[in-house]
């Protein structure tokens, strides 16, 4: 299963943030689109596993961060589109600031004196 591709695991806990951010940027989007978007923007460093993506989307539906509806895709296939809710937006800014805080902390620790 694609052992030749160098893949980087998405750091735990950040998948939700990446999906939320993608939806915020693209508007309503289907799962495949979200995965593609993350992969492209990360210049193929971050590969979203389907095995994590779809369970994560279900979890986010339960949390009420996104809603889903079936719609016609760009090439006329039926696809499930996920849309960010107000709650999702709030969650995104929460996760972003948290991520920012942690990254800054890590940078402070590892930067050369």
């Amino acid at each position, binding site marked *: 299963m694609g052992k030749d591709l160098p893949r980087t695991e998405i750091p735990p806990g950040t998948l939700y943030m990446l999906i939320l951010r993608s939806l915020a940027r693209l508007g309503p989007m289907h799962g495949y689109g979200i995965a593609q978007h993350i992969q492209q923007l990360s210049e193929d460093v971050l590969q979203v596993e389907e095995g994590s993506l779809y369970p994560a989307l279900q979890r986010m539906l339960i949390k009420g961060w996104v809603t889903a509806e079936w719609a016609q895709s760009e090439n006329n296939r039926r696809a*499930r589109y996920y849309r960010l809710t107000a709650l999702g937006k709030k969650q995104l800014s929460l996760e972003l600031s948290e991520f920012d805080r942690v990254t800054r902390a890590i940078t402070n620790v590892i930067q050369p004196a």
Partner: protein
Amino acid sequence: MFLSEIWRRIGFLRRARQFDAEMEEELRFHAAMKADALRSAGASGQEAHYAAMCRLGNRTELTERSRDMWGWGWLEGFAHDTRYAFRMLRRSPAFALIAAVSLALGIGANTVVFSVLNALVLKSLPISDPARVFFVNNSGGPSQSFPNYRDIRDRNGVFESLFAYRIAMLSLDDDRGAHRFWGYLVTGNYFESLGIQPALGRFFTPAEDVHPNASPYAVLSYACWRNRFGGDPEIARKEIRLNGRPYTVLGVAPRGFHGTEVFYWSDVWVPMTMQPQIEGHSWLDVRGTFNAWVAGRLRPGVTVAQADANLKIIAAQLAHEHPVNEGMRLTLGAPGLMGSAGREPTRAFTGGVMLLAVLVLLAACANLASLLAARTADRGRDLAIRLSIGAGGGRIMRQLLTESIWVALLGGALGCALADVLLRLISQWRAPLEFPVQFDVTPDWRVFLFAFAAALATGVLCGMGSARRAWRADPASELKGPVAPRAGRRWAARDVLLPVQIALCCVLVTASLVAARGLIRSLQTPLGFRPEGAAVIGYDVGLAGYSEEKGRIFEQRARDVVAQLPGVESAAYSSSVPLSIDQSTTTVYAESVTDFLPISAHYYFVSPGYFQTAGTRILAGREFRPDDRTEAPLVAIVNQTFARRVLGAGDAIGRRFRRGPGGPLFQVVAVAEDGKYESLTEVPKAAVFFPILQDYSSTIVLVARSHRGETEIANEMREAIGRLDPHLAIFGTGSLHQMLGFVYLPMHAAVIALGAFGVLALMLSITGIYGLAAYTVSRRVREIGIRVAIGARPMQVLRLIFARTAWLVAAGAIAGLALGLAGADVLASIVYQATTRDPAVMLAVALLMISVGFTAAIGPAHRALRIDPVEALREE
């Protein structure tokens, strides 16, 4: 938030099917998009499709994991596993049946025993806040004298209220004659202290405590009100006749309240102040007559330790003030079983039986576990396939556990149903006694919770072994084919389970044999009289309103009438017979002034001819004669223990002793053999017989000895006495053996319970041995075929197959016998004179186990010998 999420999830449950379809479509879309991308990168159509599908991986698992996000995953997984488990069980009904039935028997036995334990020891009385109500033990016994009760009540600082009660025998008169009636004499604060509300009317109050014989009131039990008074809604204020005197009914006790003793179901409650009228002689002011039982409700916040400390001080005061109280100890105990005197043995008995019941369940568990292990091994291939196509080890384990848990729950439900039937029978059963003894052992929520917990634990315990094995299984080697038995040297869980099961079985069989031996021995215990051929009838002339003078005449006339019945060899009467429920003791003093220590002795008033009729041997001296009457010198007949303890060495006849301090002197005219007076287990006790003609008792047991059937004679006695006075309430007729039933009750219960356990254990070990032997044969068909083909003789084949099983069984049996020896103490609490160090029992157990082993091995051995080498080798 939380609620809405639950709501969403419930909604989701209904849409589970739609969810799966949508997920499937979403993933198909994903794959299609992926394939499009690959195609535009230059792959061929087919190639792109496969690559995309491949990239997606295990779609079912993905769907399941997505669904798990909704949080009902385990539940749905469970439902799914359950469906699968039932499919598998349907496919092997023999296994399902054996497993469920053996567990049903194990769990059923446990449920019954637990229910009895629950009813007798755990359940509290149906009163308000029962945790604060305690019985006051007097030096380890239940009885207290009434003046002592009054002092304890008035001096203590720990009881909110302290009440006294006593079981009383009464007679109820109506237009159809006199009926025996059982009740309680209680102090006025009894109902108040218990905090219960009448179903009708009102209860006594302390106002009923004031003047002796001035409160002719009665409270009826619910059952009595329904059965005897037809549930008359106007019963309050009505008059009933008790012992020939009018009593006003005040009210009816609530349904389910039978009094403050668990076994004894009372018909009526009467104020304690009526005691002199009810019982004929008053002991309410006699400090040395210990006839009342005392219990009370602690003040809120008072601990048992505080109360005990307070009672200790009062006991010391009372012992100091009144010599009769010497050595008095007052301690708290749970109420319901005559205080600690009844509770401790009951707890030891039921606890011991419970322990053995748990062993039965463990044996059933071991049985099921080895069945399951064999089954898992047979399904090794199937499991290996499932493992290799991606089912997680955890998933398989869960699957196997679900199966064993369901088998256990099925068995548990079946066991519960069995137990329920049995318990209903026990609850309805009334001991064949003159006394209203009844056991309410109907199961309650505690019992069902226990059964459920037992079943669940059984399921997990049994399934664990095989599930763990599946978890560790190596699919590659399993798929290569049935593992060639490595000369049968590898130790599997089965090899441990069988000896464990056999050992448990041995312990149980030992226990049941010991119980049976104990019963036989106790039936052979010399009682000091011969109940065979003796018929009895009990009545109380006092209850029918006879004066002492008229009563005396009636008693003699009754004896004469009975003595003339055809077939009656001799007839006599006494105030009570040994080993019946009605026992009294008195203190006696030797005549010599040097020794003033009182000795307590059982006493009976008996008529001339009593010893001959009861079958008690007179060792020296003479029987009472008709001329031993009031005007003649006071005489007595004592037993051997009395003679030795009170009169010392030398010839007892002609010596004298006092009854009570400063009481009259009695001259010993005979020494009778020792006997049992209260229980079969007692150490020899002193007993003394006085001529009833020099004394008087209104309560009478009339005994007739005959070669004709006891029941027949008893019926004729009843008719004859009924002709003399139709208004006399008869307390009990039948054989003397029946009258002693209460004494043998624990023994019979033990033999029935332990016997049932023993039979269950034997059945379990037969199926266990059979299972392992049959399994061994089926796994080694090929090997046996080869061996037979190259000339193995039948004995060699059998040795090959069964040597190991035989060793396992032998090891288990030896361990079991050792355990049985070590557990003798537990058995001693259940069975009188129980000893496992009994060569007959050991031999019987050994023989039983050997025959069990052979019985179980016959089938598999037959099969092993019939194996045809040609067919066996063709099979693979």
